[in-house]
């Protein structure tokens, strides 16, 4: 039986980090709070999968990424896509403004134009692969940073990213959309391979 004390302890430690993660992906504070609760809800409902083998943070982080991307997939109208105005209106959120700036003008050529595109192309991926892909192509983290943050080996990160690329390429071909990682549908190039050691900060 889950007690409120257990929930409160975990929320105190990781609640803010999860909220920030959700906010960055969905761009709405209200939605981010809702997704934060959803993240903790799924965590406690699927505790059996956690098994304590890693830090609760990594598990929560994966869940938060997944529920956020899933929320993005459900958005149907263009107005519901990542809204810079919504980000700007986030109360007291300098983080949101910085995210808006980054996503609108400073995005690397290899990253997705929108998180919405990523959300659509990553449908069907497992939570872990999706999280790694988002951390790599949206957050701009290197494989080493991802491996460190998620307590995974770098080799695992590489495999997951490779799988992610194959998956999105197939999806892009099926949907006849431009494959965002190489500038063409089904195209392949140096950008296909996960970047190593690239610093995404700034």
């Amino acid at each position, binding site marked *: 039986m*889950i*007690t*409120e*004390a*257990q*929930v*409160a*302890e975990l*929320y*105190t*430690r*990781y*609640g*803010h*980090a999860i*909220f*920030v993660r959700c906010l*960055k992906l969905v761009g709405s504070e209200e939605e981010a*709070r809702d997704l934060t*609760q959803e993240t*903790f*809800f799924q965590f*406690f*409902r699927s505790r059996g999968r956690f098994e304590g083998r890693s*830090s*609760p*943070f990594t598990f929560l*982080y994966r869940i938060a990424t997944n529920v956020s991307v899933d929320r993005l997939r459900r958005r149907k109208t263009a107005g519901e896509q990542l809204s810079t105005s919504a980000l700007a209106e986030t109360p*007291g959120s*300098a*983080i949101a403004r*910085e*995210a808006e700036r*980054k996503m609108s003008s400073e995005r690397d050529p290899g990253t997705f134009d929108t998180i919405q595109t990523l959300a659509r192309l990553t449908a069907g991926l497992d939570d872990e692969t999706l999280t790694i892909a988002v*951390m790599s192509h949206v*957050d*701009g*983290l290197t494989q080493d*940073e991802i491996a*460190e*943050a998620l307590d995974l080996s770098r080799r695992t990160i590489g495999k997951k990213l490779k799988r992610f690329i194959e998956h999105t390429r197939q999806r892009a071909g099926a949907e006849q959309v431009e494959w965002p990682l190489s500038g063409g549908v089904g195209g392949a190039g140096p950008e296909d391979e996960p970047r190593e050691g690239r*610093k*995404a*900060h*700034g």
Partner: protein
Amino acid sequence: MAEMTGTPATPVSDVMLARYVAGDLRGEQLARVERAIGETPGLAERLERMKSERAAFLGSAPPHQFAHQLVTRLTVERPAPQKWQVWWLLPPVTVATALLIGVVYQRALGPQSLSRPAVTTDEAFELPEDSLRGPAAPAAAASEPRPETKEESPPTGTKSAVAESVAPKASAGASRETSKGKGAGGVAMRGPSEDAVGSDVSRRDERARKKDSAAPSDLASGGLGQSAQGAGRGGDGVGGYAQPPPPTQAPAREQAPPVWASPPPQPVEVERRRPPAADTQRESEQDAAAANKAPAPRQEPSATAAGPTARAEKPNGGGRAADAPAKLADEEKTSARVAETAKSSSSTPAVADDRGETVVSTSVVISRDVGGRARAVSAGEVVPSASLIKVVAQGGRYVTVIGIRRDGVPYVYGQAESAGGQPVTVPMRLRPTGARVSEALFVVVGDAPLVMDKSPVGGGKDAAQLPLRLAVAGAQRRFVLIVSAAAE
């Protein structure tokens, strides 16, 4: 949030910084982050900002409030079943639903349900072994096939016409009387007990009589036909198949069985002789009907003469009988004709039992088969299943008719007890329509009730050719007869 704040690249990502703030780092990771914080002024600034934002966040969304909401939600919302779980549930749910529908459907249709396999009626006809022992045997014969009518006992001084026709000691005079329709015998189907057949049967036979009245030679004058005029107690009871009656009369049954289709087993009544007065009166009626073809003034049998199931006691049946005297006369003639046929039949002679003794005489009369005919049956003849048959036998106190199931297991069709050494009639009905296999009938006559061993004696149609290895008590004499019921 280094990547968001635009600060120079640091070896510590925001994720690691968040883990550091949350106290989630251990060992080498913790040492590396702390070292980076100490070496990188910007990182320390980011750390402070993150801590302040975290405090603000927890202030706006208190942990206890969040925890309460989450626990409430966890309590209310159960995990939805996965799709595979739903699919796994489908087959058993489907099967259970089908079974339930089948049970309800079968119960709604009752014993006439088409889904009821015909072969299972064998079990329905079987009697417990114990039920055939001792005086209670006739009563226990309730699980036997329902006989159509109860055979009327012959007049005093005469034997059953059919029985006499095949018995070595049969007298010519008696046969003559039978040919004139005077002998009640196995085919003179009017009697106090058969009069009380149920109203359903009566209505059916009434229609049959109307149809056959134009062709008297084919008239079905079996017990059913007569029963239409009979009156059981209450007017619609089935007479003649109740528990072992007192010496003078048999109580009528209260409910009429369904006609021709898997009837509930009825007990076989031990035949009793009628008082002479009733027989005499009956003979005179038959004579009058046969000779004059005119409705002789018919005197309803008194309760004393014909027992409690007499026509006079049936309010409806009596009136109908009174309205159709000509029809009644035709039936009488037909009965006489059948009796004559049975008498002249030589194919059902006395049969030597397995010990070589010629001890019994027997005859078989179809009181009504599924085609509506009443006639004598020859030994070895194949008759339609579901035929109503009367086996008349003499030579022992107890007469039992046994059928052999396809798997060789014998079962009792009917049993009757003789009174005073008179011929015994065992009314019975072959397996109902829908039977899949032929079956042989055996008649066992003895001075003690049959105790039957249900071990298989032989299989199928060849059973009649096999020694009848029935465990018969005492001085039972057994022999193999007669008819086999062909599937319709």
